[in-house]
């Protein structure tokens, strides 16, 4: 079966990368998963994917799952960059983080995050959360049209 879309997971913690992959598998989401281990890597990937979207629209992720606490360029800085760049400003971004501190929620919504989801400690709950996110962003949501190159 062909993948139905791509997810970019921006996550520096190896355990969380593996657990998220596992949760995606368990939900049978059948999508390609790209991993960025730092904020800068995510920005490089997304800017290139959006710049090439005319030739390869499938290379643009249907959703970006963004951890907030990342080395050097943190998640909020990534989000701000994405929202100020014409090529990436419409990308759906979900903050997927351990924290539910008000400060993090506000800081994510201010530049325009599409959704804020707290990663549960309980792995079964985490699998459920990834399932809901995947089904919504990959299957239910209509992605924004690819901008003209």
């Amino acid at each position: 079966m062909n993948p139905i879309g791509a997810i970019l997971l921006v996550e520096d913690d190896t355990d969380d990368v593996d657990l998220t992959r596992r949760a995606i598998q368990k939900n049978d989401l059948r999508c390609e998963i790209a991993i960025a281990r730092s904020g800068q890597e995510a920005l490089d990937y997304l800017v290139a994917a959006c710049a090439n979207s005319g030739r390869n629209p499938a290379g643009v992720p249907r959703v970006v799952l963004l951890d907030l606490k990342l080395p050097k360029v943190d998640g909020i800085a990534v989000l701000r960059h994405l929202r100020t760049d014409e090529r990436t400003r419409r990308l759906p971004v979900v903050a997927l983080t351990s924290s539910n501190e008000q400060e993090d929620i506000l800081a994510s919504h201010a530049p325009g995050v599409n959704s804020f989801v707290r990663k549960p400690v309980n792995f079964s709950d985490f699998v459920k959360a990834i399932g809901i996110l995947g089904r919504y962003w990959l299957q239910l949501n209509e992605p924004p049209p690819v901008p003209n190159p």
Partner: protein
Amino acid sequence: MRTLEAGQPVIRFESRYRARDGSYRWLVWNAAPHVGERLVRAVAHDVTERKQAELALQLTNQELETFSYSVSHDLRAPLRGIDGFSQALEEYCGERLDETGRRHLERIRAAARRMGLLIDALLHLSRVSRTELRTGAVDLSALARMVARELQERDPQRSVGFVIAEGVTARGDFTLLRVALENLLGNAWKFTGKWEDARIEFGVETAGGWPVYMVRDHGAGFDMQYAGKLFGPFLRLHEAAEFPGTGIGLATVQRVVRRHGGRVRAESALGQGTAIHFTLGGEEQDGKEDVAVGAKTKEANHEPNRRHPARRG
């Protein structure tokens, strides 16, 4: 000076002065002009110590913020790893484990999940202390009814009679007072769990002209011998198997009440229930600690006003 020249009084004007020894002192001025007498009467209070305490508090709050940020981001992730990879181990290698091995694995997972709950409780408690207080008129009766409805919806099999007094209002922070009532009514709900047709009351009494709010249940109660542990965080008076919980509820209530300038006290008797009374400021501040006083005990009969210092959170 312009205000004084315009004939207006100056109230609580704060300024900093350098003393001869090079240290700084803060003074608060209240001054009033008496134009007819060509006089200005002014009083200054030295508030240096208060200012220093405020600065220290500000620093402590910043440290608390940093600490909570780190707890929130860094402490939960490894637990997700423990729980997630234990589950993977169970799935991939479960058949190679015997009954004892599988039981140990399940205990590892249960411990990780419990630690997750404790971290959340700790964050919740620190948030109650850090949140900015937004005071307004709060309809406590409506709030209590809402919390009661939520408890009933979560556990529809139970038959609990709520007796909620009408028209109980207070000035306070809606969100924090909601947290307090959720904990108090939630505790009452939990500790009446083994009683059929349990009853939980919410109301207000007046003492010394000030309102004293009260949540009372007729449930398990506790032995007043351990009352000192009642308001300490993570201290529990019942075994987890009997009544589950993190032990954070009354510590949270105490912080909410203190942030409003009030006090909280408990009355209880084993097997007869518990009543928690709290004020939200206004009453005479006599410097006494929040207390737990035993009801229907010998000591309480002889000395009804005797107060026991409670262990602080």
